[in-house]
């Protein structure tokens, strides 16, 4: 089957009556799962897999992947409107989404997020399609040395993330890396920081940590302060006003198309690398958006670019993440492992056999990502209005309801009571960090990347010796990383000097 044949057949199947209803149901299902805090793509797919038995391969794959493709979109809605990351990959959206809501521009933020998601997903899908002829070679570019340097590069982005000062961000990032060390170490087979607890020996799961740090901390604060979730907004936006804002947001996403492309490229690139996940991609995209912005000082106060960047990248990840799954049947993440199980249940092979004989299935996946996100965007817009009204409900009613949803979400992924405790514990940590002005995003990046950094450093040292970074690609990446870091340090010092000079005196960091 040639690529053109595969593409045509894949497209025709995707829009056929036998497939599109499943695709639509899957996408809406994914959207709703994404909206619920704590439930992410992994959960949506695990649920969807149960329904595959009687489906045709094309319908089944569209249903399954559709459910995975739209969760980030739903999660973005929750992040902007409720200051609660719907899924892990939306954590970066929290930096600028909720401030926009508090400025009375919730509709713009949501519109921009939805459109960016769609554009990012489309970008990722197109890249995947273009890579098909050399998919296997591309996936194999990344070995332990490359992944180590890339993960380290992503870590350095904590320097530019928040409005918090650098030292505190570094403290938070290192604390995050220490948290990643908790559990049974693969390399030495020793338990680290488990304090003899069997539940801790598997390490902390990402979902409860994110929910605690961001969602629960927000709930605690809201509870203490009282009032409605959306601060600084007297009454909810009217339906008409919301609609107007959504279209303005969509327009902004298209207007910032170059930013969307760059952030999507970051997302797709990081999606190609196994074990990094999509949460860091969104943060790196945010850092990139901030650094290249004309007005970086407005980031964190409600700059729409700070929503567009992460939302474009966290959906563009999908195209990259599919690469190793399709090319070799090697899943790069836990969601992709479920996708493989789904393909297995549907009786489909991956690897060269899929690329040669079932290319139409690959294109069904590609079109599922695009069409699924389009459906997600359209349906999501109808959800904005009722959801944004809820943000004006008094906290006495809102907090208990949201807390119940958050705790259920924390429990549901692994059905673990322990995770509920972790969520509440990190809720307290998150609140303390917020009060003391430590960056929670930096902690999260350290936590997510800590494991990848350690594991790949160890493997790189074992496989290539102490000078593993002297090979061409790792070397280039290392030089880039050092340059990037140096540039930022210089900028920070210069910024501090100008801040210290009396002419431009400003409020010192607390």
């Amino acid at each position, binding site marked *: 089957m040639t690529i053109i044949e595969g593409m045509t057949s894949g497209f025709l199947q995707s829009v056929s009556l036998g497939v599109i209803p499943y695709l639509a149901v899957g996408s809406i299902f994914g959207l709703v799962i994404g909206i619920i805090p704590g439930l992410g793509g992994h959960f949506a797919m695990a649920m969807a897999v149960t329904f595959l038995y009687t489906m045709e391969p094309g319908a089944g794959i569209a249903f399954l992947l559709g459910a995975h493709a739209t969760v980030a979109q739903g999660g973005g809605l929750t992040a902007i409107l409720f200051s609660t990351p719907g899924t892990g990959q939306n954590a970066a959206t929290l930096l600028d989404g909720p401030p926009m809501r508090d400025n009375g521009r919730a509709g713009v933020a949501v519109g921009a997020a939805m459109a960016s998601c769609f554009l990012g997903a489309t970008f990722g899908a197109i890249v995947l399609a273009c890579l098909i002829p050399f998919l296997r070679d591309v996936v194999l570019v990344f070995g332990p040395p490359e992944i180590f340097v890339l993960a380290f590069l992503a870590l350095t982005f904590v320097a530019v993330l928040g409005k918090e000062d650098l030292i505190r961000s570094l403290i938070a990032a290192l604390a995050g890396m220490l948290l990643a060390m908790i559990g049974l170490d*693969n390399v030495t087979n020793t338990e680290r920081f488990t304090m003899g607890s069997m539940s801790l020996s598997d390490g902390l799961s990402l979902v409860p940590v994110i929910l605690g740090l961001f969602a629960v901390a927000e709930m605690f604060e809201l509870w203490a302060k009282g009032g409605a979730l959306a601060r600084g907004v007297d009454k909810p936006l009217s339906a008409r006003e919301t609609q107007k804002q959504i279209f303005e947001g969509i327009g902004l996403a298209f207007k910032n198309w170059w930013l969307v492309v760059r952030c999507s490229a970051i997302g797709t690139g990081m999606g190609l690398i196994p074990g990094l996940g999509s949460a860091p991609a969104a943060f790196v995209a945010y850092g990139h958006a901030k650094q290249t912005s004309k007005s970086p000082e407005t980031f964190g106060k409600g700059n729409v670019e700070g929503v567009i960047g992460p939302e474009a990248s966290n959906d563009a990840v999908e195209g990259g993440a599919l690469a190793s799954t399709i090319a070799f049947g090697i899943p790069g993440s836990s969601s992709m492992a479920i996708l493989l199980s789904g393909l297995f249940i549907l009786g489909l092979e991956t690897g060269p056999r899929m690329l040669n004989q079932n290319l139409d299935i690959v294109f069904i996946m590609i079109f599922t990502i695009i069409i699924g996100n389009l459906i997600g965007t359209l349906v999501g817009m109808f959800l904005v209005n009722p959801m944004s009204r809820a943000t004006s409900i008094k906290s006495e009613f809102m907090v208990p309801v949201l807390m119940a949803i958050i705790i259920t979400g924390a429990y549901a992924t692994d059905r673990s009571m322990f995770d509920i405790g972790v969520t509440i514990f990190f809720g307290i940590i998150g609140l303390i960090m917020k009060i003391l002005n430590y960056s929670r995003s930096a902690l999260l990046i350290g936590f997510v990347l800590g494991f990848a950094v350690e594991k790949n450093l*160890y493997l790189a040292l074992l496989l290539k010796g102490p000078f593993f970074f002297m090979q061409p690609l790792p070397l280039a990446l290392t030089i880039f990383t050092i340059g990037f870091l140096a540039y930022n340090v210089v900028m920070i010092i210069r910024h501090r000097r100008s801040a210290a000079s009396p002419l431009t005196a400003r409020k010192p960091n607390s």
Partner: protein
Amino acid sequence: MRRDFLKGAAATFAAVTMLANGGAVFAETAAEFYKDAKIKWIVPYKPGGGYDEYSRMIAPYLEKYTGASVEIENMPGAGGMKGANEIFNSPPDGLTIGIINGSAMVTNQLSEIEGASYKIADYNYLGRMVADLRVLVVGTNSPYKTFDDLLKSESDVVVGATGLGGSTYVDAVITGPAFGIKQKVVHGFDNSGDVRQAMLRGDVTAMWGSLGSAVQGVADGDHVIVAQSDVERSPLLPDVPSVFEYVDALPNAGEIKPVLEAWDALNAVGRPVAAPPGIPADRLAFLRDAFSKAISDPEFVGAMTKAERELSFVDGERMGKIATSATNMTPEVKKLIVAAVRGEI
């Protein structure tokens, strides 16, 4: 309440008649019990992956033969031990069953790992889905083509493995020194897919793994299987030599053979389907019967064959014996295996 009492009375009555008449009446009551009941099937790993796939594939067939609905519940944790504990300690009503990583649970018990609240010999087994046939694969991009090439290798063969003490690691450190292979075991990969990717890149040369995890790479031409772990060659791999064919030629065959046999016995435990101890005999008999029908259902076998997933069913009683015998080994052999599992080799 009263209904429960009547049910209990009926069961007792049935049990008494069973003793007198044989199984006929008995099976009927158990069938009634399972009709429209809900069976919880625990998978001790996350969704995705071999254990999950096997469970999800057989679930509809188990529903067909029990009349109950089968609900898959993933309960990951502690390398499969959390789920195994959960099955062992669940109420013995015959409504909670699950698949376990038999070999790992045996070695956990042998090495007296903390947190194991099960006794491998005390489970009620419904049967085994698949034995853990271990295979050694080498990348097609490597200079080695056969097991003999590896034995003769002058330079270190880089063998990739997952965690220290994990099964891919244990295989390598048991067989490598036994046959005097010059090898360097690199562990620390996340999972077998991760090792496969490193092998494709040429970072590692060889790896041990289950047959199930190796078939795709073989079909794709990424790697070849050069050795297998069974004493007798598996019917699925008639042309691949077993490591046991090389033992007799060794100068210290007398010491090596018991170690390899113990290793083989561990692999034979494979992936059993287990129920907690103490479930009523009639329900156990019914479940065993339903499971053996489900796993030999032609439609199920067809689907698994098409997907190149191996099945090696043994019935529940035999499975119990296999599990018990896997724990019997001489002190010297046990010391070696425990050291391998703890990562002390």
